[in-house]
């Protein structure tokens, strides 16, 4: 890779050992992908829950944080994805002291590194949405696909070590979605049904992700009626990234690059037709039982509007099964202030802040609480939780709330 004067100085250790280790890691990754140089980034976002980090990962962070202040501090705004717990409600999940101690250590290390503990996977709704053409280094696949597609920003999936490296160096290798040539559509989909609910948007995203194949494929989607809202595209993109590992999509006449460049030549691609029945079939494929142990709203964290809608449905109900709703530390105070949290918790639910269900030791809390059959309106989550031993089922927000009342999916 071609390095400028500053990058050579980092590699030579003039910016300290932490920046040197960071740029060495980035050069390994950049060289693998044939990057010729670095691109400066304006923000970094780190996924680093302690279930993923483990003891080894936390020790590594503590090692970095043990360097002098001038050597260890991030150079650009660097924020975090959800943590593995909400400390104030960890007892509801039956998380152990060991889990919480590891979380505390990770938070202490990140804070020493100058990382802002935002603990959110909806930073594009709550912190600072990137703008068209802005180069960023974002972790969390849902954050990346939304930022690339809906905002028109430029990021690859940056796993924790790479996102932290980007924070420490202020740059990232220029490959993949930082380059124009990778942003053109590779697959074309014609949709004959515009989803109405968030679980349907997730199902459509998951279906397109599954059909398009891998990280390097860019779906161009036509046929949608109207302009979807932010929460709809949040679920659509998160599910697509989860099922297909996609990092970018274009919606005909809707997303910014499709508005600027039209179909990008997608008209020459073969069309894959998607019907309402296809969307229902994906959802129905998870309906293997009617019995429900737990209801979860998470992945991505809920926006204030989702909490408002959930609160309205919960009003006057009494749950017989746990209902867990997860949001960001930025949204939670507003939810409290506006009475949404109270409506949900008066019905027997629990609203968590700053965590994500599947990043919170999902296997261990399932065993501790006897949870196996889980219902959610997040297509992303049903795709993930099978590997954790759950039987996850996908349903609308209303059906999920009803399941919390009756213990059964209708």
């Amino acid at each position, binding site marked *: 890779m071609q390095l400028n004067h500053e990058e050579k100085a980092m590699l030579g250790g003039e910016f300290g050992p932490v920046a040197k280790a960071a740029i060495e*890691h980035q050069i*390994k*990754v950049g060289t*693998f*992908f044939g990057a010729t140089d670095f691109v400066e980034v304006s923000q970094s976002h780190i*996924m*680093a*829950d302690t*279930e*993923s*980090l*483990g*003891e*080894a*990962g936390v020790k*590594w962070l503590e090692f970095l944080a043990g360097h002098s202040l001038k050597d260890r501090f991030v150079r650009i705004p660097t924020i975090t994805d959800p943590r593995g717990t909400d400390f104030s409600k960890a007892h509801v999940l039956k998380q152990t002291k060991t889990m919480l101690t590891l979380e505390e250590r990770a938070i202490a290390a990140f804070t020493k590194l100058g990382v802002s503990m935002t603990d959110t996977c909806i930073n594009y709704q709550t912190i600072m949405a990137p703008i068209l053409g802005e180069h960023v280094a974002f*972790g*969390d*696949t849902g954050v990346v696909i939304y930022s690339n597609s809906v905002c028109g920003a430029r990021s*690859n*999936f*940056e*796993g*924790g*070590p*790479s996102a932290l490296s980007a924070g420490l160096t202020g740059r990232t290798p220029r490959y*993949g979605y930082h380059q124009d040539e990778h942003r053109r559509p590779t697959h074309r989909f014609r949709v004959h049904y515009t989803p109405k609910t968030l679980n349907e948007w997730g199902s459509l995203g998951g279906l397109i992700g599954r059909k398009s*194949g*891998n*990280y*390097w494929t860019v779906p161009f989607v036509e046929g949608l009626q109207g302009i979807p809202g932010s929460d709809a595209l949040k679920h659509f993109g998160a599910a697509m*990234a*989860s*099922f*297909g*590992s996609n990092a970018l999509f274009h919606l005909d006449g809707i997303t910014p690059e499709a508005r600027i460049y039209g179909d990008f030549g997608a008209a020459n691609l073969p069309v894959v037709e998607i019907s309402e029945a296809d969307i229902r079939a994906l959802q129905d494929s998870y309906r293997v039982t009617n019995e429900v142990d737990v209801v979860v709203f998470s992945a991505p964290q809920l926006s204030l509007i989702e909490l408002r809608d959930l609160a309205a449905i919960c009003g006057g109900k009494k749950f017989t099964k746990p209902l867990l709703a997860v949001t960001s530390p930025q949204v939670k105070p507003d939810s409290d202030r506006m009475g949404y949290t109270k409506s949900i918790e008066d019905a027997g639910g629990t609203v968590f802040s700053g965590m994500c269900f*599947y*990043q919170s030791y999902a*296997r261990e809390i399932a065993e501790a609480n006897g949870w196996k059959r889980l219902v959610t309106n997040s297509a992303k989550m049903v*795709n*993930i939780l*099978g*590997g*954790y*031993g759950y039987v996850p089922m996908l349903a609308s927000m209303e059906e999920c709330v009803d399941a919390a009342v009756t213990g059964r999916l209708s």
Partner: protein
Amino acid sequence: MSTIYHANFGMGDTIEAVCLAASDGFSARYDLDRIHGKFSRPAHKLYGQDYHGKILVLDTAKGGVATAWMLYEMKSRDVYPAGIALNSVNPILVQGAAHAGIPMLAGFAEDITTAITSGKRLRIDPKTKTLICLD
């Protein structure tokens, strides 16, 4: 007689091990019981198989960003794949392999998951970007 498969991308040190191969994706979070070292997603074609010390031959990297941390954590407990060979790769697996020091090859001219079957002894040579079937 050995058979050689050429990759477009390679990283890490040369290693030899028996492989697990399947036409399926890979995500450490979605697919693995990392404590016990087994594929744990029921729908995965390698469900129930032990992966420790094996070279994984799979189609593509799937899912989220957690794998970037998890490979390092798995290696610290000595329950990790010896190497990874994929038809196509996403940045997360590359970043994770770079962080953990796990050899990796990706981008083959043919579908590597149908060319190689589980149980074969393989050599990953990232410097020459070759995957060699030794059986």
